């Protein structure tokens, strides 16, 4: 049998750094990813899609946000979608899952809200296949949500497939923060052919039979694993299961750093940023941290080519330039003459910009502005 393992769609997620246009596109592409998953399943002959939690980003989405992914799944009546709640969309009393059931789910969409093993429609050659879902009834459940899988009864010889949402490792030093923590050897203990996990947004194997699929559409600059954008095609036909990642994500999220000291650095940075995807830079969202020191002309070039140029080419370019300094070079200041009121004003700002004062960056910017205005003044006939 073959199925697609995915998780963490987080429909309705907001991206606060993005402008309104970008936000709309990012949110839309998360929905589009469902279609791509459905088509992939169909193309690969898989009749099952296991969604390991966090299909929605929040516990109380609007009706439209709630129904949109359901409608996308409805478009694939030959594919059965099995969903469980995650920590973003836990099965709270009166919560979104009850709303979903109230609204009615299509026949091919199955919401698992109790940890009872469920027989799957398709099995492997001559073997029944049973799904063992783990259900989060709250955002942070203490203990292991998969603990019941060891004792979950299924017919002898049946394939047991786990579906859960949580972390196999605690990241906090506080043992009390061990929420939704899943035993790393759960697949072995519970005799699972595959444990489909959700929560981590980057695709990663947590063991031979335990996998995180990651989010199908990347949503962050530092997601670990492969950074997200993949689903897993799992085949249990052979003795050893095979797991093949397939790329379905549209966007590339990158975190970049650059040290700028001159024109060559700016050239290299522009090339690097444009090189993330030369064919379609609009797929790229980059978080750029620049540091270093630039003279007036170089700084103008940086603003023109990186901030304005590359910034317009990419889907989003978020820049942290707190540690990029504008240094008025002797040449910059010489353009104002060796003395006089204008030079005096520039010198004052340059001194203030070089002192470790809270308004240092303001002084830098003011100096930059002065040099810019003076240069424009000089070239204006």
């Amino acid at each position: 049998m073959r199925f697609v393992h995915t998780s963490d769609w987080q429909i309705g997620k907001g991206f606060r750094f993005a402008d309104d246009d970008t936000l709309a596109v990012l949110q839309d592409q998360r929905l589009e990813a469902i279609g791509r998953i459905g088509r992939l399943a169909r193309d690969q002959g898989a009749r099952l899609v296991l969604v390991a939690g966090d299909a929605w980003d929040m516990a109380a989405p609007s009706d439209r946000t709630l129904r949109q992914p359901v409608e996308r799944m409805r478009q694939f009546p030959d594919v059965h979608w099995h969903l469980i709640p995650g920590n973003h969309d836990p099965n709270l009393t009166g919560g979104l899952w009850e709303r979903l059931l109230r609204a009615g789910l299509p026949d091919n969409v199955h919401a698992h809200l109790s940890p009872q093993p469920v027989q799957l429609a398709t099995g492997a050659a001559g073997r029944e296949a049973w799904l063992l879902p783990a259900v989060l009834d709250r955002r942070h459940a203490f203990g292991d949500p998969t603990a019941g899988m060891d004792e979950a009864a299924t017919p002898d010889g049946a394939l047991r497939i786990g579906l859960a949402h949580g972390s196999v490792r605690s990241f906090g030093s506080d043992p009390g923060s061990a929420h939704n923590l899943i035993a790393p050897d759960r697949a072995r203990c519970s005799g699972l052919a595959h444990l489909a996990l959700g929560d981590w947004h980057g695709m990663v194997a947590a063991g031979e039979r335990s996998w995180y699929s990651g989010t199908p559409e990347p949503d962050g600059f530092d997601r670990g694993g492969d950074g997200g954008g993949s689903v897993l095609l799992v085949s249990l036909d052979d003795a050893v299961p095979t797991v093949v990642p397939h790329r379905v994500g549209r966007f590339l999220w990158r975190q970049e750093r650059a040290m700028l000291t001159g024109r060559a650095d700016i050239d290299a940075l522009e090339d690097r940023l444009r090189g993330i995807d030369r064919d379609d830079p609009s797929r790229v969202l980059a978080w750029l941290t620049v540091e270093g020191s630039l003279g007036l002309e170089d700084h103008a070039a940086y603003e023109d080519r990186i901030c304005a140029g590359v910034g317009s080419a990419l889907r989003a370019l978020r820049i942290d330039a707190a540690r990029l300094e504008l240094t008025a070079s002797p040449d910059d200041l010489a353009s104002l003459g060796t003395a006089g009121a204008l030079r005096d004003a520039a010198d004052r700002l340059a001194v203030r910009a070089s002192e470790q004062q809270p308004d240092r960056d303001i002084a830098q910017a003011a100096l930059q502005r002065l040099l810019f205005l003076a240069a424009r003044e000089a070239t204006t006939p």
Partner: protein
Amino acid sequence: MKLRAIELDQFRKFDRRVRVDGLGDGVNVLCGPNEHGKSTVLAALRAVLFDRHGSRTETIRGYQNHRGNTAPSVALEFEHEGGAHRIEKRFLSRPSARMVSDGTAYEGDAAEERLARLLGVSVVSRAAKDAAQTASIWGALLVAQGESFAQARLGEGARTTLSECLEAELGSVSGGAVIGRLLKQVQPPIAALLDGHGKPRDRYKATIADRDAAIAAIALLQDRRRVLEDDLAAALTARRELARDEDPAIAEHAAEALAVARRHRDAVLGTRARLEQAEAAVALSVSAHAEAVAAQERRVLRATRLAETGRALAKLATDETEARARAQAAQAALEGRREAYDEAGRRHEAAERTLRKAVAAFEAAGRSDVRNAAASRLALAEIEAARVDELSAALRHLRLDENGMRGLQDAALAHRGNEAALLAQATSVELSLDIGAQLLVEGEPPRTLAPGDARLSLTRPAELVIPGAGRMRIVPAARDQERLHAAAQDTARALRRGLEGFGLETMAQAEQAMSRRRDVSAALDQAQRALGECLAGAVPVGPGSKARPDIETLRRHVAMLDADVSERLASLGTERAPDLAIALSDRDAALLLEEQARQASVVARDALLSPDAARDIADAALKQAEFARRDQELENQRLSAEQARDEAAEPLDTLALRLQLTAETVSARRTELASVAASAPEGTPEMADSAIRRLEEAQSNRRTRIGTLRVDIARLESRIVAEEGIGLDEQIEAATRQRETAAREHDAFRREAAILMLLRDTLNQADREARARTLAPLMTWLSPYLQALFPRARLSLGEDFLITGLSRLDAIGAEEADGEAFDALSHGTREQIAILSRLAFADMLLAAGKPAFLVLDDALAFADPVRMERMFDILADAGRRMQILVLTCREDVAAGLGGTRVRLESV
């Protein structure tokens, strides 16, 4: 730059070609009457230098001759930087410009550019409508009629030119003009961000409102989120309660319980009536039986009482007999005691008589003793009284007493004092004679001095007779000698008279007499004390009496005691007083006897009283016994009568039968009651009713609750569905995003405003300081002119090179407190200062290597002769550095100025 000639044709008033030629290096004067064309020459100069030949502005058209449709043209010849130049312009009709500069010809715009470069005027600015020369410094140097009264209002170009000159002077570039332009560029964006009070405005302000609105929206949404969660929890609880209440098993169970309770109540009520009947029957039978028992008990009791009263009656008769015997015995005993008491009384009286006699004898003996003691003390007192009398007589014969003695001692002391004073004044003579000598002192008997040493103190003249030697008279040289001698004699006389008064001759005798008197006086005191002691206590005196007893009182007291003792002895029938000790012994014996007799009498009396009481008790007991017997007899009779009556009514055997029957009835009825009680169900009817009510209420409550819960659930669900539908989490996320966006925008605006304000403030500060620096050189240019015209005065300069005021210095160079503002100065002074500033401008331009000359049209109209002279001097001096063209209608000015005289001549 030096002008050499100017030619006008068809220019304003001239319909012919005219020329001013021969302009010299320094001061040139063109003098002519009004309407001569001087101002036209100035206008032509401006036109050829600054107006573009192709221009057709109003000003240009104003150059046309009044006949119109002419083509005004102007040609100017000048020298500059060692080269000769000619510029010729024709305006309006077939306009042209041609410049020949250092042998090179330039046509049209090339000519214009060449000229502009030489003049240092920007071509661009020349394109501006007739602003070229007014905007440039030339506007300040070509001074038309009437313009000289005011300071030159410098355009930006002029200021720049001057600034550049000053900067050249300073050897630096101030960039002041650039700063002005930059400030103009900075101001609009600031004004777009901040209002006049520095508060955010427009979009900047809106970000704050956006952020606050988003924060408020988030709070509101979170509240709604909490309400939704509460509603969800409430709905869950309500559904659970409803499910429980609607459970049919529970409802069925409740109905069954109610039916059971009702049946139970019916059973309890039925049993209760039967029980009450049985209890009434039991009570009735018990009552009948009790009545029979009571009748029997009454009879038994009465029979017992009858027997008891019979026995009591017999005993009471015996008691009465015994009481009577005791009463009689008590009476007999009383008689015997009464006799014994009488006898004891008689014996007590005899003892009392004996005692009285013994007491009298004892008192007589005591008084006799007292009398004897008083007589003895009287004898002693008589002896001491005789001695007192004797010593008193002796004392009376001694006349010198203590007072007299003190007088004699005072007189002797005064005499010795005078003698000593005399001696102190004496002349001392010390002699050492081998033979005796005789001394004869006046008023003294002669004395013989023994041989050997002699010491003489002489108070009076004396003669020393020394045998074999002669006489020597010595007269003491003492003061007051006579007075001292007289005083010594007076005191000597007084002492002698005092002694004679007491019959004495010397003070030694007086001392002896005084000693004797003291001895006698002491003896008298002793005798008086002895007498006092004899008398003291000898006579009893009344309490409080202070009278000292005297011997006469004692004598009377003794006589009184004698009489008392005699009387007492007479009453005792004896002549001699008995011995006191014996009398005391007799009296004590009589006292003892009397006490014994009295005790015996008391005992007898007590014995008399005790048998008397016994007899009274015996009498009372007898009476009581009689009464008791009679009562008992009556009771006995009554009981017997009752017994007879009852027996007649119901004989004893009948009563016994009744008792048996009633006892059997009681037993039967009780058995019936126990049977009914044993069959009764548990609980009371009240409890049964209460249980029914409770069950009915529970049922009713459940029905009500089901209704309420259904309503509540419906209400909650509708609310939940409504709130869920809008997606509160999504809205909170959107509002949070809005808040962060607004905050980011706000930060960006704030940063932008800070940048712009810092830039503006820094530019302003630099500009101010640069101006302060650059104005200083202008002052150095102006000062010499100023000192020439207004010695001891100082100018203050404001921005834009304008002179703002004038202050004069006093004799020692101190500045006046209040300088005069420029506008407050007189017309003449203002004009003169305005010309001076123009001269300074031209000086600065020339010093900076720029072209400059000054043209004044009808200036110095208001100068007084003195100032006029000074202005001439100043202009002449300036003429050595620059070319000056003065256009005037006043011949005196022309004559005063000197310089080169030029004329306007037709060509």
